[in-house]
């Protein structure tokens, strides 16, 4: 294998001893291709019958989009099964050999569905010549034929009441795709075992509720996710961390959310004041002997560019809490900053030289 392209499919596996021929250096692997997770077998090996070398390649192939779409036309009952036998061929775990579909399965699929492709100007995949597959019960060659247990629809399909398959993305999309309209029935989130956003009625998988990432427009899926003590605050991932450890410069939440937005520019209308959060309280920064380097540090911490201007303004709000920077700082006042955007997005070398 060292000298053949086989190396990839082996992944450097010891099975690849040079004395083997290129063809049988692959081994059985679990099927991960979503389309074919409901087959009567769950191991495959590559290359497959379409020339794809890995499941990844098969998953982004033209055929992995073509067959599920074609299944919806109901041209052949076992078309999805046939498609999977060539996309992720069955692997015999004893012999590590591929088990092909029977020629009859291929021929039935082609006879009934090729013409449907023709209607939209597409061709049946070139390298699925049915003659390469053995006849059923041919001499000591095993091959695959569908039995009653075979699912006509893939896991990416919804099965209409009539038995037809439509793509799962068409379920409850407001347009009836099943001839019996069953894809637009029982569309409530609860019926589909999904969680409903109270305001937008959007349906969400349970796995994304309280996972620290808002999905509902009003973030309701991230509310009431934990019950912290009075002296604790809730992290974005719903852990509870004591209040005095917020913005202390050390991450205490696993997702570090206790250290987010600790230095901000307040969104006042007439000017932007530098705000620092300490123990989850917003503070104006008092500026006894403010230095320009602190302006630069503050702007950099906020992900902004160099400060364009720093001004000292006498205090305006009496009851505002102050965060004193250094004990020997005398004058109490507020220092607004205005930071420019980082110098980005310019391409001086691309300047066109006029002739």
């Amino acid at each position: 294998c060292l000298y053949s392209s086989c190396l990839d499919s082996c992944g450097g596996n010891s099975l690849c001893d040079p004395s083997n021929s290129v063809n049988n250096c692959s081994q059985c692997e679990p099927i991960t291709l979503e389309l074919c997770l409901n087959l009567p077998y769950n191991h495959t090996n590559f290359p497959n019958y379409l020339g794809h070398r890995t499941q990844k390649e098969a998953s982004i192939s033209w055929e992995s989009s073509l067959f599920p779409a074609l299944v919806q036309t109901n041209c052949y009952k076992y078309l999805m099964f046939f498609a999977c036998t060539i996309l992720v061929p069955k692997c015999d775990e004893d012999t590590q050999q591929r088990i092909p579909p029977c020629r009859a399965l291929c021929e039935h699929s082609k006879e009934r569905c090729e013409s449907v492709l023709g209607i939209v100007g597409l061709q049946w995949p070139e390298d699925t010549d049915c003659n390469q597959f053995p006849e059923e019960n041919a001499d000591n060659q095993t091959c695959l034929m569908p039995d009653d247990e075979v699912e006509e629809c893939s896991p990416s399909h919804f099965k209409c009441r009539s038995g037809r398959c439509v793509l799962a993305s068409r379920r409850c999309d407001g347009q009836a795709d099943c001839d019996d309209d069953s894809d637009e029935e029982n569309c409530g989130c609860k019926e589909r075992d999904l969680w409903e956003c109270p305001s937008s009625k959007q349906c969400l998988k349970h796995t994304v509720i309280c996972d620290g990432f808002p999905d509902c427009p009003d973030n309701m899926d991230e509310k009431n996710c934990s019950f912290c003590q009075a002296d604790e605050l809730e992290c974005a991932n719903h852990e509870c961390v004591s209040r005095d450890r917020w913005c202390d410069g050390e991450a205490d939440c696993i997702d570090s959310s206790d250290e987010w937005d600790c230095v901000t520019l307040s969104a006042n209308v007439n000017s932007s004041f530098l705000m620092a959060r300490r123990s989850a309280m917003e503070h104006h920064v008092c500026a006894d002997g403010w230095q320009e380097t602190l302006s630069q540090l503050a702007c950099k911490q906020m992900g902004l560019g160099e400060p364009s201007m720093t001004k000292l303004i006498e205090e305006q709000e009496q009851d505002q809490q102050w965060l004193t920077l250094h004990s020997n700082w005398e004058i109490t006042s507020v220092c607004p900053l205005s930071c420019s955007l980082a110098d980005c997005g310019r391409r001086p070398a691309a300047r066109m030289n006029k002739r």
Partner: protein
Amino acid sequence: ILGGRTSRPGRWPWQCSLQSEPSGHICGCVLIAKKWVLTVAHCFEGRENAAVWKVVFGINNLDHPSTFMQMRLVKTIILHPRYSRAVVDYDISIVELSQDINETSYVRPVCLPSPDQSLEPDTYCYITGWGHMGNKMPFKLQEGEVRVISLEQCQSYFDMKTITNRMICAGYESGTVDSCMGDSGGPLVCEKPGGQWTLFGLTSWGSVCFSKVLGPGVYSNVTYFVKWIERQIYIRTFLLN
């Protein structure tokens, strides 16, 4: 890039090449600050170890070293925690370089959009990369102009996938200009009045780019991730622990 044209050196100074031996160029990437690069999470599938990666800046021809070239090793790879390999959603990652780059005319960061700066359909933007051209893999950086299309229209092209608000779609119905394999992680940038370029998308996925059935390219929507990007850089730059 399908249907594009060869770029001139220095035209896209934020464009970088994410490389790993023995294959060399694997994905595109985008410089956003002296020590930080954006790309897509799916480029690291099966190769999450930072030590096997390097990032190259300031080049136009992958095969010709340029005097403006700078190469950095990778210190940290930050995959988005919600990246989903199965549905290619949350397809974004941040790369911390082992050292700052030297900012020159040929190696400079692009601007990030502000969290409320979204991209409207029918806006014209540029995509760039060293990805497949349809008939060959190029050595020279390619560029192409694409038009942003609405998510609803985009969804109509992709039965099997769900287009989410973490994505942006761009391209033409005729599929003339499109991104392709090898462009992943590269920029979709739009020019603001005043000549500043802003990064709105990272090449993520799409239909099989050189097959008969064409559709728009799908890009990770950088505006959606700006807050997350800033926080990741902040906690790795300023926190004490």
